[in-house]
């Protein structure tokens, strides 16, 4: 008897690990050396947006129209629960007021006008913390991204987001698109995933600024890198008094508002 049962099992075990390790290491190595970023991509350390409410006229919807067309955001207007929104106008009480002060004594002009709202791309995003699959994550440049491939539709992120920036696809979103007029360069989503503004990550990657900023002909929106003190947003923050939505919650929003 040259080999005991114990020795045989040891050898078999080690061989099995070895046989599994080869394809595993291949998969890990993958295509890393063959991929890289686009050379024209806009790069930044901390992307942010400034909304100049003074220049944002009531009734204008150009930014939202441009965004929702570019990203194939469906339109389900007949039922609030089915609504999908990336950028939209919100009443003062919903956008800024806190429960203790519901804007009772705010001047009428401010309290009655709509405010443009979108995902705040928080520096301390609660949605990222609660996501069980890391489908939503924060990039190094500050963009809070969704990986729709990983989203399981649990909606924890929607409960965690204090700004209501996230929408859930209760219906197949393709049913809410105009089949003759949609963007053929951008995917849709599927039923059962959460979606939100991506700060135009797909446009930053090819050297373009977000489409809402580009579409605004009143100059009310500015986008740039807060880490760069010469950027337009840094200048605007230096020269103006700005507010953020619900700063007391500690999410550190990166969308600033110039109110007056």
């Amino acid at each position, binding site marked *: 008897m040259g080999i005991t049962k114990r020795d045989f099992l040891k050898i078999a075990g080690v061989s099995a690990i070895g046989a599994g390790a080869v394809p595993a290491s291949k*998969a890990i190595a*993958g*295509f890393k050396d*063959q*991929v*890289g*970023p*686009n*050379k024209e*991509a806009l790069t930044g350390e901390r992307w942010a947006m400034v909304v100049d409410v003074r220049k944002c006229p009531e009734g204008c919807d150009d930014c939202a129209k441009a965004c929702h067309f570019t990203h194939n955001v469906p339109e389900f207007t007949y039922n609030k629960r089915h609504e999908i929104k990336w950028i939209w106008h919100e009443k003062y009480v919903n956008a800024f007021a806190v429960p203790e002060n519901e804007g009772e004594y705010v001047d009428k002009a401010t309290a009655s006008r709509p405010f443009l709202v979108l995902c705040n791309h928080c520096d301390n995003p609660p949605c990222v913390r609660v996501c069980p699959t890391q489908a939503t*994550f924060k*990039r190094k440049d500050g963009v809070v*991204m969704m*990986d*729709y*491939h990983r989203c399981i539709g649990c909606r924890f992120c929607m409960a965690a987001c204090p700004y209501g920036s996230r929408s859930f696809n209760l219906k197949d979103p*393709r049913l809410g*698109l105009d*089949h003759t007029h*949609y963007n*053929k*360069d951008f*995917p*849709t*989503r*599927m039923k059962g995933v959460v979606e939100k503004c991506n700060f135009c*990550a797909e446009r930053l*990657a090819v050297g373009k600024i977000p489409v809402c900023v580009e579409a605004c002909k009143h100059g009310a929106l500015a986008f740039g890198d807060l880490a760069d003190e010469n950027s337009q947003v840094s200048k605007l923050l230096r020269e103006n008094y700005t507010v953020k939505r619900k700063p007391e919650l500690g999410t550190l929003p990166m969308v600033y508002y110039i109110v007056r």
Partner: protein
Amino acid sequence: MYDLGKVAVGLAVFVLLFTSPLWYNVATGGKVTPPDLKSAKAKQDHCIEDTEYMKSNHMDLLNSWRDSVVREGNRVYTSRLDGKRYNMSLSNTCLDCHGGKTGDGYVKFCRHCHNYNDVDPFCWDCHLNFEEL
């Protein structure tokens, strides 16, 4: 042995039913033709890697593209064939070459082969195949 006759008849019926798909094919002369991809014209005369590699590994390549683009922001792929650089996009690069943005490439190329192999990838739940929305 009790009820041998009944058991034998039952077994025979079971075997016949179980193998019925085979008999059905024999009876109707269902001939299986392997997918013919000749009608699926691509704009470029070669793919981003050699054909054999793409045939067997395109799904792994696309999975790694997905993670690279979405999670790392690396969107440019350099071919091992000739060093050419490609935008890593299923609809805008792959399908744009395989039939253009008309649905032609999807029907004659992707779906044709996937149907034959009875695979149903969920890429098209979100990514546009230009055939229908």
